[in-house]
């Protein structure tokens, strides 16, 4: 009991220093929470992908496009339940910096394939009935204030509207998602509408319609591997080779495109913790030096070496641990604001419970490591020597 009281008293003796160490720990762990969440969010997008959806794209390259006419043969492949056409629309909303995915898809099929996308029934019906209708995610509603009934104007980049006019889409539905890896910052509209406008453009006269990819749902109980093999075999000799992969594999490729970013973030995280450790060792050494005399008194009174040393150790763990916990919890609490900052780059950013727990554990460990060296020095102090010194 006395020991605990001494620890608390010591904490308040140098309130400024205790606060500085506390704040330092909070900041460092905040950065840690942020960096680790970037990496886990990328991984999560891969892990939570559905296992019954296949992405069929051109084997040539992501933007090489497949003929839209592949849809009917795809539907005939044994084990295929449904096929949706997807075309990456691109486009610019006011400023090229306002990046979010805009995709033309077969919406009726899409809803059957994506149970994690939640739309009120009335809005769903209104969307399917409106040729120029679109649905936007709750994330876009938060960012741009879109609402059902609004018109969203996009300037075409890949696809130009006749006479260079903007594309006007009518917001008919707002979707939410039950899977954080399915991003809520998308704009989805009818693939047939894209094709309708495209075929009226003289540029495309005589050019067959194409899609970026086909989303294929595999019937329950059928082997994914067998279905993808059958699809690839169907067009092995051309005209354009098709590549079928699970949604997870497709997303993994997109994550791999980040190159060395995860490794880079890990290095930065290491530097942050090293800096934090230095600071804690520094502060606790200062505390220990100032208290040498007191410790001498305690020892002279009969306290054991370990007890006196533990005072400093506990102080270190308490300050750094609580600061770190605050920091990592703050990074969790502010996740939604970061999401806005990342916009298109990392739409699924979120902080996992494991990150919070790991961060708190690391903070305690650093508190221990930072306190143990000065504490050991105090334990070795001979009371007579300290008490004799007059400074």
């Amino acid at each position, binding site marked *: 009991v006395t020991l605990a009281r001494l620890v608390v008293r010591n904490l308040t003796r140098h309130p*400024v*220093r205790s606060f*500085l*160490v506390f*704040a*330092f720990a909070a*900041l*460092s762990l*905040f*950065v840690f929470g*942020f960096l680790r969440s970037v990496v886990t969010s990328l991984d999560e997008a891969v892990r939570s992908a559905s296992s019954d959806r296949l992405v069929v794209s051109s*084997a*040539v*390259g*992501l*933007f*090489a496009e497949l003929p839209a006419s592949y849809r009917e043969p795809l539907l005939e492949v044994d084990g295929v339940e449904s096929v949706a056409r997807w075309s990456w629309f*691109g486009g*610019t909303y006011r400023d*090229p*910096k306002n*990046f979010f995915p805009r995709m033309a898809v077969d919406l009726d099929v899409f809803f059957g394939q994506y149970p994690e996308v939640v739309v009120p029934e009335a809005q769903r019906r209104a969307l399917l009935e409106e040729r120029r209708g679109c649905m936007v995610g709750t994330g876009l509603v938060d960012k741009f204030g879109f609402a059902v009934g609004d018109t969203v104007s996009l*300037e075409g*980049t*890949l696809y*130009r509207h006749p006479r*260079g006019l903007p594309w006007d889409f009518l917001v008919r539905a707002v979707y939410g998602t039950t899977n954080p890896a399915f991003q809520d910052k998308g704009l989805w509209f009818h693939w047939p509408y894209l094709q309708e406008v495209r075929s009226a453009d003289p*540029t495309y006269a005589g*050019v067959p319609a194409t899609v970026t990819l086909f989303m294929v749902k595999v019937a329950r109980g059928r082997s994914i591997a067998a279905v993808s093999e059958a699809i690839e075999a169907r067009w092995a*000799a*051309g*005209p*354009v*080779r098709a*590549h079928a992969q699970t949604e997870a594999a497709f997303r993994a*490729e997109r994550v*791999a*495109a*980040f*190159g*060395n970013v995860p490794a*880079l973030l890990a*290095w*930065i995280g290491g*530097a*942050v913790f*090293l*800096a*934090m450790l*230095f*600071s804690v*060792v*520094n*502060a606790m*050494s*200062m505390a220990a030096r*100032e208290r040498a005399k007191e410790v001498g008194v305690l020892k002279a009174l009969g306290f054991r070496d370990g007890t006196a040393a533990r005072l400093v150790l506990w102080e270190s763990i308490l300050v750094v641990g609580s600061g770190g916990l605050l920091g990592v919890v703050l990074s969790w609490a502010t996740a939604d604001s970061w999401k806005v*900052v990342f916009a298109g*780059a990392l739409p699924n950013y979120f902080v996992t419970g494991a990150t919070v727990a790991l961060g708190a554990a690391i903070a305690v460990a650093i508190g221990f490591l930072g306190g143990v060296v000065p504490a050991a020095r105090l334990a070795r102090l001979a009371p007579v020597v300290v008490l004799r010194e007059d*400074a």
Partner: protein
Amino acid sequence: VRLVPLRYPFRSLAVRWSPSVFSALGIGLTVAVLGGVLSLREGFRSLLAETGREDVLVYLRPGAQSEGESIVRYPTDSAILVTRPEIAKDATGAPIAACESYLGINLQKTDGSGTTIVPVRGVEPMSFVIQGDRLRVVEGRKPTFGADEVIVGVPLSRRIRDCRVGDTLLFNVTPFQVVGLFTHEGSYGSEIWGDVVRITGATQRPFRQRLVALLADDHDPSRIAAIADEIEDDARTPMKLQSEKAYYAAQTTTLGDVLMALATILTTLMGTAAVLGAVNTMLAAVGARTREVGVLVSLGYRGFSVFLSFLIEAGVIGLAGGVLGCLIVLPLNGLQTGTTNWNTFTEVAFAFRVTPPLLAKSVGVAVLLGLLGGAVPAWRASRLVPTAALRRL
């Protein structure tokens, strides 16, 4: 005002070396992170900046932000475009212009980590004339037009499988033979080049992506903007015209912005942490030297001199940290890395670049962090009353 001799802060640092070193280390690590991220950004920026020339014209479809989004119909659009007066002509009177295709193609990486998207450019003979000496074939030869042959940028030949002279690459269902390796200081250096007719045929692409041309001698690069306005509204072939330099400069934005944001966020957070560490150190320094300060003031030094002396001490800690941070960052210079060019979704290979201005900036930030950390403790020291300070044991 009599200043405290400079020897005082330096000697003090040496006496209390362990907290000084720890503070410097903290600042050094912060600066190292800043420098590392900035050198990554610098490397990417300079790669694209070196690609572009002011006297090379790039025509894209209006609205397109990159080649990946652009469409140029061949020969419907290109035949009209090549007659434009701003395009230079060679000795035979032929326009020095090339209608090129651009497509990211899936290829296997050599390290076995799967596929990546490599930019493949379909070129015309004039493409080589436009690039001139900047493109050098260092092994093998240029591709023969009319044949299924390609040349590969040197950095790619190390990262991508089957990219050595004599190897065969499969584009869709057509095998292309690698007949040469080339270098280019700019981002063309991490591309694959081949005959545009063969490549668009093999990949079943109905369109090409851009027209690139040399600016005529009697046109000044500063007039490109005016010509661009005129072409943008052209009734037959509206086009977006930029100099090659302006085009590639705009390509750096996406990744450049992300890296700059990352550097700013991290430096702000870590910098604040480093300042807290420095405040701690300097507060303890002032606390431990209360009596010394009392002596200084009794000797007639003014509060301001004392303030300055402690501030210098903090600044020196910052400077040491800055130098340390730079030493950590320097070995990164030249380190090769790869990332995705988010404007075209293709892989680009480039190196970290640690430049003198970048180092100067890092050291500047470090000194600033030290000074910020030292300001409050130094002010405290300057306010000590000599009698009280001397009385304190």
